[in-house]
């Protein structure tokens, strides 16, 4: 009886230390903070074109960083070069550290768009079928609501052009840039308005 209580206590303690500690602890603490020079303190990027990473899903961040390092994801030259400077373990630890931070919705002003038409588009493409919970996403599917709009558009245009291989995002081939613009504005605003 006593032993099982001790065991439970241990399980509880380990779980509460937090995932990033398990994935490297002080290693993440010392390596992750430097990213804020571009992404803002705790990943709350204030600009239009550099993404918010604080509070993004760890599995997604890991996947992207490892793909960037392996030159399998040509979406950012800067990040391909940065990722080359870390071990896989460091990239995983950094991902856990940022996932543990609070998501900060982008405050950037967005372009005007037709709300009802854009909501229909998002429903038709079933964006929130994968990016569940109104775009919060889960696991390897990223949070997209409240993301920096310039970044979001840049990435969606690269999916559209087939530059980032993805079966799920292949539908963008047939979506116009005007429609992408509208969806980006809607998704960014949805963050601050939720």
């Amino acid at each position, binding site marked *: 009886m006593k032993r099982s209580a001790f065991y439970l206590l241990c399980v509880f303690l380990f779980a509460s230390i937090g995932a990033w500690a398990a994935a490297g602890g*002080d290693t993440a*603490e*010392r*390596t992750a*903070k*430097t*990213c*804020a*020079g*571009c*992404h*803002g*303190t705790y990943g*709350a*990027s*204030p*600009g*239009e*074109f*550099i993404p918010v990473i604080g509070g993004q899903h760890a599995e997604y961040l890991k996947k992207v960083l490892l793909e960037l390092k392996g030159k399998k994801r040509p979406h950012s*030259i*800067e990040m391909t*070069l*940065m*990722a*080359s*400077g*870390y071990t896989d373990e460091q990239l995983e630890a950094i991902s856990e550290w940022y996932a543990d931070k609070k998501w900060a919705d982008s*405050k950037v002003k967005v372009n005007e768009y037709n709300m009802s038409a854009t909501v229909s588009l998002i429903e038709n493409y079933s964006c929130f079928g994968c990016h569940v919970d109104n775009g919060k996403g889960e696991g390897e599917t990223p949070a997209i609501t409240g993301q920096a709009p*310039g970044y979001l558009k*840049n990435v969606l245009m690269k999916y559209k052009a087939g530059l980032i291989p993805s079966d799920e995002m292949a539908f963008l081939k047939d979506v116009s840039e005007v429609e992408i613009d509208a969806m980006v504005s809607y998704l960014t605003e949805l963050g601050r308005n939720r």
Partner: protein
Amino acid sequence: MSGISRRNFVKASAVVVAAAGVSGCTGSLGLNLNKQQDQVILPKSGKRVVVLGGGWGGTTAAKYVKLGDPSIEVILVERLENFVSCPASNWVIAGFKSLQEITFTYDALAKNYGIKILKTEATGLDPAAKQLITAAGRIEYDKLIVSPGVEFMYDKIEGWSKSAEDIFPHAYKAGRQTAILREQLVNLKNGENVIMTVPAAPYRCPPGPYERACLIAFYLKNNKKGSKLIVLDANDDIASKGKLFHAAWDDYYKDIIEYVPETVVKGVDVKSRVIKTDKGDFKGGAANIIPNMKAGSFAYKAGLLPESERWVRVNSFTLESQALKNVFVLGDSTHAGTVGPVPKSGFVANSMGKVAAAAVVNELNGKEPLKPNLVNTCYSLVNDKEAIFISGVYDYDENTKMITSRGGGLSPERSELYGKHAVDWTLSIWSDMLS
């Protein structure tokens, strides 16, 4: 625009003085000054970190000490009213931004983190008593973080006088000097040339002069018919991002920029506005002399380095001074030979601020310091839209006991997206330092 430029836009910073609890004013008489300097002000009760220098390294260190342990009292000592960003100041020279858009108060650091901002000049150090000596009085510390920036070396320029700085502005500490160079360009007559001199490496921000050359050339091309920019470089070639800058000069400014490498400024004639070099005399309607540099003057006053040396020797693991215990040194003033091959950039100073903050927080809490890790990404605009960049990741090497390069590289070409990232980067890093 970002929230920061609206919120922290220059205004009377009564809050700053109020937060410090003392006036930044010093007596007008020497006697009063000395008396004040001898008294301990703001007596210390708990753990305290004093940060000297509200630039890129100092602001970051102050904020990250508080993020690491809010119970530590942090006092930031800075003699100037406002923070004016050196990165992006070339954009002001070219007219893309106003000086006000790159100028911020320290209010948010006081308001958001409880950092005490003390506006006064540091005049010396008493390392045995662990006291920083300032014009406002002595300030006790447990750990002192010093980010003194650079000082210009005019002593080897014959004919130099204090007034020469306004005739041949360096514009390499942003603020009034930036405005002077901008004004010289605006007032330039069509056909008059601009002269710019580049110091021998190492100096603050290696690509800085060459970005400036691009942007001055951009301005001349669009506004001053027949005017040229003559770049007199003490180095044998462009000191950073050489291929990318040469490509931009060839493609956009072939008829504007005349590049003269291996040219050292020997003297000036302030009256006739002539710059004398080992390749002859040059005269322009506007002239920007970026002189050789060494560690900021406080580093010498504090005894962090002898007069015979230019950069402060530090322990690469914690950035603690090799000469003085409990004094940590950041940024441009550090000796790369003791840190590792990192550039003297604002981003590196920002990273160094985090390294020193982690080291002092851990030491004050009886823990081992963490291994240092630094990052650098530096964008340079080549015109009003396109940018190039260099980036680097640096980590501590157990074998060499130095910070060493682990990855990074140059942008493959220039692009408008990098130009957008350049602007975004300033917003992010300003917010990381100041809000």
